């Protein structure tokens, strides 16, 4: 069951991963963007980690608090998008202290919808949305944490590979049309690092 405790555990893992992944993500974002993606995620996970001891038992409220950690530390796209996704998941879980793992895929779907609305972007635009959708589809019907993570990780890898040869259609990278071909989207890679930290 997804609980405040499992959230707290996950926060610790993601926070740990960002210690090493931040540099890679900054660099990746720096190629065609402003190079702040690692900074954004370090700051946000640092804040999440600080707030973790006070995470309420209500999963919805806890997820809402996680969303706010993002909006408080950054104005960058990725932070706002993840916060948007977390808010959507928060709305879907409000009032519950336990959420079955089988709902994870649906929560990813709710996040995806909200984020796509916020970003005025669609699947295939080569953004974090494509990673999220791959994870959503791969986790459908699964109810075991380890299996969820393994399926999502595998699916996101495949999505990154699939989109590699396509142009960026959103964000700063979009303005460098040809230069983007052959490059991975930093937001998708960041999502992959987050998932892998949970394995």
């Amino acid at each position, binding site marked *: 069951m997804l609980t405040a405790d499992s959230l707290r555990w996950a926060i610790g893992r993601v926070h740990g991963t960002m210690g090493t992944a931040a540099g890679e993500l900054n660099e990746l974002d720096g190629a065609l963007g*402003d*190079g*702040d993606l690692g900074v954004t995620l370090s700051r946000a996970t640092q804040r999440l980690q600080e707030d973790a001891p006070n995470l309420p038992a209500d999963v919805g409220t806890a997820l809402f608090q996680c969303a706010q950690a993002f*909006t*408080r*530390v*950054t*104005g*960058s*796209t990725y*932070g*706002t*998008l993840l*916060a*948007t996704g977390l808010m959507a998941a928060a709305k879907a879980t409000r009032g519950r202290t336990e959420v079955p793992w089988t709902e994870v895929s649906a929560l990813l779907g709710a996040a995806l919808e909200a984020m796509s609305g*916020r*970003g*005025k972007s669609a699947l295939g635009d080569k953004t974090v949305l494509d990673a999220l959708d791959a994870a959503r589809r791969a986790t459908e019907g699964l109810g075991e944490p380890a299996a969820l993570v393994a399926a999502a990780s595998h699916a996101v890898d495949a999505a990154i590979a699939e989109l590699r040869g396509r142009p960026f259609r*959103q*964000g700063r990278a979009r*303005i460098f049309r040809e230069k983007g071909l052959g490059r991975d989207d930093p937001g998708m890679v960041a999502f992959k690092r987050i998932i892998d930290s949970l394995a």
Partner: protein
Amino acid sequence: MKKIFNRPENYVVEMLEGLCAAHPRYFKRSGAEGRVLARPEAPIAGKVGIVTGGGSGHLPVFTGYLGPGLLDACAIGEVFASPGVEPMADAIRAANGGAGVLRLYGNYGGDRMNFDMAGEMVEFEDIRTTTVLVTDDVASAGPEERHKRRGVAGMVYCFKIAGAKAAARASLDEVTAAAQKAADNCRSVGVALTPCTVPAAGRPTFTIGESEMEIGMGIHGEPGVRRGKLRTADEITGEMLEMLLADMPLSAGDRVSVLVNSLGATPLEELYISYRYVARELAAKGVAIVAPLVGRYATSMEMAGMSLTFCKLDGELDALLAAPCDCPFLKI
């Protein structure tokens, strides 16, 4: 380009400190982390509040236009980066005098996401908000995708017009409608000659040949429509003029305001050389120029280049443009 600052991470904060120290009558810092600038007298009870926001490095945009007859509060981002959701929400709170708040800003993805999210947050506090996006840069998308265009110097007209409407104690819907009309009637195009340097990056935003220019380039270095040889003032101005007129035809009897804007390094002398050409061409068409602005109104720090903006006027916009306003960078 050589710059004068201390540590890159303090560029924005120290600029804010200087702004407030120099102009305490116009600006006070507020919000968590001080990332909001507001008029000292805000919120003004019963007046519709107007907030804007965006990345730093464009002074006088955005902050510069706070004051009587103008804006109430501004959320401040790092150089060329969107402000966070929290400062935006704080700016809305600071501007809210109970009559609702208009979010009026340039159409950039990050700003839009964050202002949308901020709007949702303050909804919980029963603050009514509306949004008008400035989308004046004709080089950034075709006429059929007007809503995708970036916002550039046309902002200044939108700020002025919306600010005058709010000062006249119009309702939120009326202020929003006036701002939207101003935004619909503004067209801009720019030409960049050199890049500028974002302090945290420490290197120029783009590279361009010694005798090249780029027509239509955005204020952060977004690609334009054409890169070519640097030409004469009349040729450059003529090309920009044609682009604007193709998008918004003007004919005898029309009234427009014209803004010839430096992106930073290009001096006033050269703006006047360019204005001279615009004035002659519009006069020949029988178009009247009202209250022209020539100077640095929306910049990209030390970038060389200029932009040309038209704001087509009707009776209402004409009166709102002429209404008094007061800020350190625009007094009418």
